[in-house]
């Protein structure tokens, strides 16, 4: 079962944080199709957040095809959820990334600078050229 965390003061709204956490869990393979997400009331009790936030997050997940709900039973991860990152892809991409990080470190960049650089590249990469 997924354990939610909430970061207050962040630029990301609360419901979006919950959505991210579910997506990430699915992509990492922690949650598989058919797994039940915690009931809204449980999340509310654990995090002391607005029940609408949980409902909003779960609705969005449903819209995106990550989850579906059954009245009285709960919300479950859908079959249509994206598969976890294929180990093959991980296997291919990860070493290149590690190598790049090493290069950046050797060039004298701090961890923070590397992170900023990566984020800006990420931003550019996904913003432009979305074919």
């Amino acid at each position, binding site marked *: 079962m997924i354990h939610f965390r*909430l970061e*207050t*003061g*962040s*630029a*990301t*709204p*609360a*419901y979006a944080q919950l959505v991210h956490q579910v997506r990430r869990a699915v992509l990492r393979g922690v949650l598989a199709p058919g797994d039940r997400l915690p009931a*809204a*009331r449980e999340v*509310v*009790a654990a*995090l*002391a*957040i*607005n*029940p*609408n*936030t949980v409902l*909003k997050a779960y609705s969005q997940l449903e819209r995106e095809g990550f989850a579906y709900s059954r009245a009285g039973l709960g919300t479950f991860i859908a079959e249509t959820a994206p598969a976890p990152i294929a180990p093959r892809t991980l296997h291919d991409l990860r070493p290149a990334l590690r190598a790049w990080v090493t290069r950046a470190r050797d060039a004298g960049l701090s961890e923070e600078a590397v992170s900023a650089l990566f984020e800006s590249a990420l931003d550019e990469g996904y913003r432009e050229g979305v074919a």
Partner: protein
Amino acid sequence: MRPAIETTALGKRYRRNWALRDCCVQIPGERITALIGPNGAGKTTLLNLAIGLLTPDAGGIETLGWSPQRQPELVLGRVGYVPQDRPLYSRFTVADTLHMGRSTNPRWDDRGARERMHKRGIALDLPIRRLSGGQRAQVSLALALGKHPDLLLLDEPASSLDPLARRDFLAELVDAVAADGTTVVLSSHVIADVERVCDYLVILADGRVQLAGDIDTIREEHKVIIGPRFERDVASADATVISAEHSERESALLVRRDDPAAPPGWRIETPSLEELVLAYLSNPRAGALPAPQLAESAAS
């Protein structure tokens, strides 16, 4: 859907000063609304008017569609209130306090109230004056929730509570909302709590409504645009600029705008709720006017 609280040009005066003036707001039902504003902005006054502890000097207010002045039994039967400083009869025991709730409210869930106390580890035979601040807050909340209100009003409910007590209080509050769908309006100074728990926001400044709306929507509508420093006083020229801050090299404007594109050389960031609220509070003249298109970029 009928608003939980609706005011029409509402005004309230204390001697010479108007605590609320020409206040028009519709607070929606089935949400948890935050009332934010500096001290003296009229938050307590608004809540007291909504429950009928005060009567308006100008304009009108309706709570759940009823007039708190002319139909007090209806309002008081359906609205729970936790006043500022959470008063209780200090010589009563917890059981006495709940008994008072039972004997003065038409609808009362005694078992639910006792379970709440049990869940929080508060013994019923303890006198109120021996309870800690957090426990007293729980008792006040249980008293207000005991009548299963349709609307719950809280005036700075977490003030002077330690972090754990505050957390427990909010947890109890949202649990009740999750169970019953109670509409909540709470005034608060703690933006972190507001962010956690509230989904609708009303900012009061100087007795008037400065901003009101769904929190997620408000956050999407506001951006901080940061660019090289410029001299022109933009804040007063452009209605959608809420605040402007200048440092040696840069200027940062918090704006309310529709189109997200930034002029070249500028970047856009999303403000945190706290930044947003602070920007409004420090610029009382910035009002919740409908957002016109941003004039040509301020860099020109």
